[in-house]
């Protein structure tokens, strides 16, 4: 599958990496994002921001696959949703502290990702997308049938708990800093992966898989590793969301959620580091602040989809980067 995105072929400025794999411009962008994360809870509603951060992490994890390996997964809701269910179950029924619950969410995502990924990476392009969708539908069926998920009522009233036995997360502000930390760790981890030798191999697979194979790389192993990482981080994002909102429901494992994360990455900019974050922010803001437009929400979402594909294929961040001739 060719690189899906307008990010190749543009005449970018050559920039050296100055710190942690960031170029100077990226570092500036990162600083802006960091500043926004630090200041925003004082003038924006923290619960809303937490939701944005959870989805931003989810979108970044998804983007690792599509943007850097060229694999379009249409079943990422499975890892996100199952991560949420297991984290919620761990916190509510097993009484585990939130940090463990979130880790369990990640572990579940990784486990599922290993099984599904091992099968799915044997196919490419649209067939890969369809296999991931097929497995995600089976996971959905499991969640609907399983006793512990509470059917369509979901797991309700999950306690936020006390982090490390010290920080009481019932306060929205404390919870916010935890979510911000989880997000930043995930974000930097993904960034680190992309800029590691491992990430270079992934990108070479995206650009030309046969050549990567001919250079002696076992491309399937690399793809599987990326898939598992992406699924694990999606699980972490789902688990964190379950802890924040105290609910885990079927919405998060349904196929529309898989579509939504594609939308976020597309709107922000596929294959850009900051794109998914921006995309998640835009889509979640829309869902929240357009809620009072009632039935027009889906229409507006559809129009944005169409506009993005027709006019802004690079996505918001991609377009900005293209305009500044830098990679963001």
């Amino acid at each position: 599958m060719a690189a899906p995105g307008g990010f190749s072929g543009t005449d970018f400025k050559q920039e050296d990496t100055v710190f942690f794999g960031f170029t100077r411009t990226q570092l500036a962008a990162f600083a802006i994002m960091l500043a926004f994360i630090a200041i925003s809870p004082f003038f924006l509603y923290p619960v809303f921001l937490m939701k944005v951060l959870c989805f931003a992490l989810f979108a970044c994890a998804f983007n690792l696959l599509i943007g850097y390996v060229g694999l379009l997964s249409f079943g990422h809701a499975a890892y996100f949703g199952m991560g949420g269910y297991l984290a919620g179950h761990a916190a509510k029924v097993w009484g585990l502290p939130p940090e463990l619950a979130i880790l369990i969410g990640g572990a579940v995502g990784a486990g599922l990702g290993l099984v599904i990924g091992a099968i799915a990476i044997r196919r490419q392009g649209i067939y890969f997308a369809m296999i991931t969708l097929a497995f995600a539908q089976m996971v959905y069926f499991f969640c609907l049938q399983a006793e512990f998920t509470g059917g369509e009522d979901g797991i309700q009233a999950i306690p936020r708990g006390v982090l490390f036995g010290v920080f009481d997360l019932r306060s929205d502000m404390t919870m916010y800093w935890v979510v911000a930390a989880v997000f930043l760790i995930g974000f930097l981890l993904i960034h680190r992966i992309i800029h590691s030798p491992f990430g270079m191999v992934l990108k070479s697979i995206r650009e030309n898989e046969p050549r990567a194979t001919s250079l002696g790389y076992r491309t399937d192993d690399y793809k599987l590793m990326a898939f598992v990482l992406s699924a694990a981080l999606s699980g972490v994002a789902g688990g964190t969301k379950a802890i924040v909102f105290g609910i885990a429901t079927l919405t998060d494992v349904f196929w529309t959620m898989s579509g939504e994360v594609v939308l976020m990455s597309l709107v922000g900019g596929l294959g850009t580091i900051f794109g998914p974050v921006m995309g998640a922010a835009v889509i979640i803001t829309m869902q929240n602040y357009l809620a009072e437009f009632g039935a027009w929400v889906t229409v507006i979402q559809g129009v944005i989809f169409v506009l993005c594909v027709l006019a802004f294929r690079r996505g918001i961040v991609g377009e900005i980067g293209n305009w500044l001739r830098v990679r963001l």
Partner: protein
Amino acid sequence: MDEIFGIPAPLLFGQLLLGLINGAFYALLSLGLAVIFGMLNVINFTHGAQFMMGAFVAWMLLNWAGLGYWWALLLAPVLVGLTGVLIERTMISRLYKLDHLYGLLLTFGVGLVIEGVFRNEFGSSGMPYRIPAELQGSWDLGFMFMPIYRGWVVVVAIVMCLATWLVIEKTKIGSYLRAATENPALVQAFGINVPRMMTLTYGAGVALAAFAGVLAAPIYSVNPQMGANLIIIVFAVVVIGGMGSILGSVVTGFALGVIEGLTKVFWPEASSTVIFVVMAIVLLTRPAGLFGRA
């Protein structure tokens, strides 16, 4: 033999027949998708919305223009097909040089818009549409009562599928089409207007969806989300049959209808998931689908 796996044989026959009828819808819908994909390389996610539009246009023709079922069967595909032509000309035609992904995303967005607009206009609970007087009633088959209308659906669907296959495989237009799929530049060089052919193909695929929509109007609830519920299943059908394979989508459509019908007897809860299990198995053993060319 009275019982098969603990299920009375007559009941099983009945279920097979019903599965076949559902398969007729899957076949018709996936046929349109396959035609569009084969020619345009676009995965038409708007298909569900266009199916829904077919049913709604039938309702509008009846309530606003006083034109009944038979007129709708003729007019609705044409009208909805025209909107398809418009969509292709203004939007999809800009994406041919890009990755498949963009076509999928664009049509997904268009589908959202169409469904949203219909929901605003007509609400969510749906519109009544009656079975035409000529096709009311049912046959007593001994093991079950078979509504005449369902029989009609199967017959029409098979005729439609055959006709489409004949057009593509046996006529001149069809051979141009197939040639243009293989090598558009060459066909263009022979003086054939490839862009127009693509437009017409999309329009025809959409018309097929609308046709299925009219067929569905008397038996399914005519509401804005009626297509969204089907589209994912129909996708699976196309993928299993082999993307772009006309014969594959038709055969798979009927076959999956039957498999689903049987599941409804033995494990009803799983009847909507079974298709995805089949899809996973097929893709793992035959990467390009049952009838696809790898």
